[in-house]
């Protein structure tokens, strides 16, 4: 009897001890769960806040600029496209879109159309030709005879000056995106030559939430011209350790191709929309101008130097990524180095600056923001066309 009692008591004690232990355990588990949730939440908040802040800032800036109204000029303009498809079609679109908001009427033609006939019927006040390499000089002369002001905006200077130098003289006004070509066209006999760089089309290149698959730390988009190949060969060992993406033609010419093979997408031409998305998803975008004496696709026998920045400079600055660019003389007219854009002069400097800005999120964002502000303020197609129309219709 005694024995059974003690056994029973033991059993009760055991049960109680077990219950206590379980309680203790479950309390510990609950506390751990709560702590995990709270820590996770705090981490998430800390990371989400600056991202949201940046996005909200950019959106407010963009919506303000989108709401700005430009004075409409009472003019009818005939616009002749390049007629070459990519990569010019997006430029045509951007210019036609901006023109539509700045003059009362725009008529769009291709260079293959019977332009004198169109001019005879529609009677525009002026004709603006983009690039002009596909437009026969006879058509331009006929249009001029009808008393219509003509202008051409050169898009490929100085790489095709052998060709463009021949027909520029037929136009009343010549606009070039290359500063060093202004004296060249004057020498060729053009009366009115103006420097007019490209700009950013904010309908395409703007800060946006990028697809996670298109995010990377360091990005380069462009063809592998020889000067670029040389440069990237020098930094390939460094880039191999980073989250890098390079896309474009001819990159298999790299001596160090094997180091970067998995980071290069060869021979892929991306649409502007896609490019914009990659720009927006990158932390740092490298911009390296092609050399003016590279002989692949180059008809610049006079060896006119390239001082001006490429259109990509504006596009990257408008996309909300940090731009690291090599220095051209004209750069400081568009952006303040170190505040709105970051420059490099050598492979070593590029590596050092990539390291610096990848580690400092806030400094990078500050530069991105002021670059974006500058682009919106000064480098939009509306601003450019305002200047162009002022020259044409003054």
């Amino acid at each position, binding site marked *: 009897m005694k024995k059974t009692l003690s056994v029973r008591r033991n059993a009760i004690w055991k049960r109680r001890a077990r219950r206590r232990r379980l309680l203790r355990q479950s309390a510990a588990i609950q506390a751990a769960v709560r702590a995990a949730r709270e820590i996770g939440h705090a981490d998430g*908040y800390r990371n989400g*806040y600056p991202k949201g*802040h940046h996005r909200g800032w950019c*959106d*407010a800036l963009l919506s303000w600029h989108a709401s700005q109204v430009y004075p409409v000029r009472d003019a009818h303009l005939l616009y002749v496209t390049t007629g070459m498809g990519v990569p010019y079609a997006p430029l045509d679109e951007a210019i036609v879109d901006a023109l539509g908001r700045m003059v009362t009427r725009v008529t769009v033609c291709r260079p293959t159309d019977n332009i004198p006939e169109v001019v005879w019927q529609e009677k525009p006040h002026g004709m603006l030709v983009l690039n002009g390499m596909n437009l026969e000089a006879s058509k331009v002369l006929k249009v001029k005879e009808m008393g219509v002001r003509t202008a051409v905006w050169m898009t490929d200077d100085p790489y095709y000056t052998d060709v463009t130098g021949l027909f520029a003289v037929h136009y009343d006004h010549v606009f070039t995106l290359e500063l060093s070509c202004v004296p060249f066209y004057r020498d060729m006999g053009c009366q009115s030559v103006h420097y007019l760089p490209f700009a950013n089309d904010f309908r395409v290149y703007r800060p946006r939430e990028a697809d996670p698959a298109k995010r990377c730390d360091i990005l380069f988009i462009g063809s592998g011209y020889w000067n670029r190949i040389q440069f990237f060969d020098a930094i390939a060992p460094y880039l191999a350790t980073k989250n890098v993406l390079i896309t474009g033609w001819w990159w298999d010419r790299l001596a160090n191709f094997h180091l970067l093979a998995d980071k290069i997408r060869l021979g892929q031409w991306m649409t502007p929309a896609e490019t914009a998305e990659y720009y927006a998803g990158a932390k740092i975008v490298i911009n390296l101008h092609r050399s003016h004496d590279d002989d692949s696709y180059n008809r610049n026998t006079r060896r006119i130097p390239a001082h001006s920045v490429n259109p990509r400079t504006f596009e990257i600055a408008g996309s909300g990524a940090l731009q690291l660019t090599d220095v051209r003389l004209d750069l400081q007219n568009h952006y303040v180095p170190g505040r709105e854009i970051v420059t490099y002069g050598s492979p070593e400097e590029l590596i050092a600056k990539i390291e610096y800005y990848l580690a400092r999120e806030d400094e990078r964002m500050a530069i991105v923001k002021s670059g974006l502000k500058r682009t919106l303020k000064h480098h939009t197609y509306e601003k450019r066309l305002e200047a162009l129309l002022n020259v044409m219709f003054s």
Partner: protein
Amino acid sequence: MRAKRKLRPQRKMRREHIRTRRIWQIRQAGYAAGYGGGYSVGYHAGRCSMVHERLTVPAAQIVPYDKTVMYVSQGTPGFRTIDRGIMNALGKLTREAICVTSGDPVALLAELHRPDLVLVLNGIFSVSTDQIDRIRAMGIPTAVWVADDPYFSDQTRVMATHYDVVFTHEISCVRMYEEAGCRSVHYLPFAADPDLFRPRHPPAMQTDLLFIGMAFPNRLAFFNRLLPLLTRRNVLIAGGGWQHLAGYHRLKDRIWLTGIDPLTTPLFYSGARIVINLHRSDQESGNSQRFPGLSVNPRTFEIGACGTLQLVDERAELSRHYTPGQDLETFSSPEELAEKADYFLSREDVRRDRAVNGLKKTLRNHTYVHRLNRMFQLLSQPGGVWG
């Protein structure tokens, strides 16, 4: 037996493993929730900061008047934000601003500095009228900006006659001062100081509904009918006298009877999703003539400058400053307030659009720089003291 013992540590390890993984998943879920929350709060803050950056007039662009102004601040806590705003703006708009408080020997200081204007804020309680008379006798123009109309109109009417120029933020009192014998009376509403009242992040506290202010009888009666909303939401009421609220015992921890230092209120406005602004009743003992309260209180502008949604009781002058339904929302009964609060707490996007619009309107039209510019214009008019 042996096999069992061998298995045990493995089983334990597996259990540990499952537990760690589960905890990790919970953490990830918490991270996702926190990221979303932080992102959306950050988005609004970023939008506000852009608006602020864009609409704040840089000091370099403000052309100062070639005048010396001596400003006599009220100095009491309730007026601290107004004092600060006026002093900041005077610093930008005058050649020299001399700031003294009402406790100082104002006449003596005026004799010493010989300013072009002595501007007194509210003057009823502390600056004695014979000091003002002495300053006027020296040939220095004096102006008062009355801040508490119409609640103390019995006193202010007598006091105002001692000044050259009277500014009042209450449009219904302009006639009163003119009838009392003041020669130059102008309507000049208060404003917000964008350096002090701006969207502040991180805020001091996150709340759904916020009310800061004393429990005047009309406010108590109003909030007594609002109890269901107050108990349902995350509210904060700060100010003296709220212990007389009907449901005080239930809301005890969400009512701060000591109030909030006026200079820190932007930190609370910024963290509130909705700020309630309820004007004091004009049926008070200090206003025996019953001048109606038509104009809005300074707080209307201060809330508007913080990038948050303001729910305000409608006064006649409100639509002169803001567009209800676009920059802020109005209510006329506790039921309407509760309904609108519930709507805007569930529609975060609409709430934020209103908040940003309110911020834009405030920065464009309602800062102390705007007001003092207007004041100096009025003074420089022909027939004015500087004219």
